[in-house]
């Protein structure tokens, strides 16, 4: 069986899968990129409040073209809005929310995730790259539940889910759940447990494209 990189779920479907695991009343921080799509798929009837680490609780949608406020941005420096009931605060207070365990869920992208839930998402280790970390290390260390959304493999077909991360770590034993284009995988004490397979993806194919042993949900 041959599958192209984008086989299985689309990034929107991946975001939708993650959105289903966000409970009513959750305080959520969404990383830059695919994680931002999660907000579009929260099931009807659930109210979720978004935190952006640059000092806003109650972030609304991205601003419509032409009505940007240069002083109202999200962590990705996109122009956004604030919902009624929002609050602004300074950076130390914002990271007190993060570090203090007050944010329920953070959804992040990743270069690699290990079978123990280690995550690498801030540096490729390439000495020619300018290193930049932002709030990633604070988020994985402080938020109660960490979800990762990522393509299952790199563009060159290498597994991103591995026994040990080879890229520099963002945090150790912090990831709880992984949403890829092929599957939804829980990181458990017993190892990586496949909760759901994308249409057309077999367990065997998934295992072949994963750098760590997988278990099937009982």
């Amino acid at each position, binding site marked *: 069986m041959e599958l192209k990189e984008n086989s299985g779920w689309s990034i929107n479907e991946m975001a939708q899968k993650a959105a289903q695991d966000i409970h009513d*009343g959750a305080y959520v921080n969404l990383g830059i990129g695919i994680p931002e799509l999660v907000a579009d798929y929260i099931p009807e009837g659930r109210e979720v409040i978004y935190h952006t680490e640059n000092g806003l609780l109650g972030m609304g949608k991205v601003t419509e073209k032409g009505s940007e406020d240069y002083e109202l941005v999200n962590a990705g420096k996109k122009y956004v809005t604030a919902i009624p009931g929002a*609050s602004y605060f300074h950076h130390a207070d914002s990271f*007190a929310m993060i*570090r203090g365990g*007050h944010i329920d869920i953070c959804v992040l992208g990743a270069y690699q995730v290990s079978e123990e839930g280690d995550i690498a998402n801030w540096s490729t280790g390439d000495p020619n790259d300018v290193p930049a970390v932002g709030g990633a290390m604070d988020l994985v260390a402080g938020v109660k539940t960490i979800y990762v959304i990522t393509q299952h493999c790199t563009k060159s077909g290498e597994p991103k889910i591995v026994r040990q991360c080879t890229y520099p770590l963002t945090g150790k034993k912090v990831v709880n759940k992984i949403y890829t284009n092929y599957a939804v995988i829980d990181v458990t004490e017993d190892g990586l447990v496949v909760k759901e397979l994308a249409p057309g993806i077999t367990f065997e194919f998934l295992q072949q494209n994963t750098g760590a042993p997988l278990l099937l949900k009982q």
Partner: protein
Amino acid sequence: MINKVVSTVSEAVADIFDGATIHIGGFGEAGSPVELIHALIDLGSRNLTIVSNNAGSGNVGLAALIENRQVKKIICSFPRTAISVVFPELYRRGEIELELVPQGTLAERIRAGGAGIPAFYTPASVNTPLAEGKETRVFNGKTYVLEHALKADFALVKCHAADKYGNLVYNKTARNFGPVMCTAAETTIVQARKIVEVGQIDPECVITPGIFVKRVVEVSKPADESILVAEKRRYPWN
């Protein structure tokens, strides 16, 4: 849907268990959540550890909670006032524990608890009896003492206005320990003089963002502790 408003103070405090550690806001009477404390007296939970700047006045509020023998230990900076009788008596009889903490260290320990900082160094109390047995360390030639975060199972806080998301604003110096205590408890319970609609509190002026608050109850005419004390009132009401 998010709605943190509950109807009664008794409902608000109903899950406070025996042996709980509780942050109680207030600097003297200013900001003291008298009605929540009275609800806790009605509930009767025992063996409590109370973190609060003072130890109550007269025979109402925190003093009444102590008088009702629900408090095993108090962690505070100033348990003695001109009108405090309950705590000093029990303390002299050795029937209540006291952990005395410098006021700024108390505030910072609570803030650290809420901010995920397990410990920090402070210059306050170095070379005094309150630093005895504590680890010290020199930074840039000056000695500091290591202090640990102070979290609680519950926080009881009084504020001026709240919305159903749990966003809070306070009134003047009644703010005091409220904002840091809200951040440092598993379950933060707030009495507000008024509940307002979401959006009515200016997002630039929110002091406690709703993320830190679990329950809000409206107590529109809270008692003034000093008036109760002057009138020699006693809770349960005499």
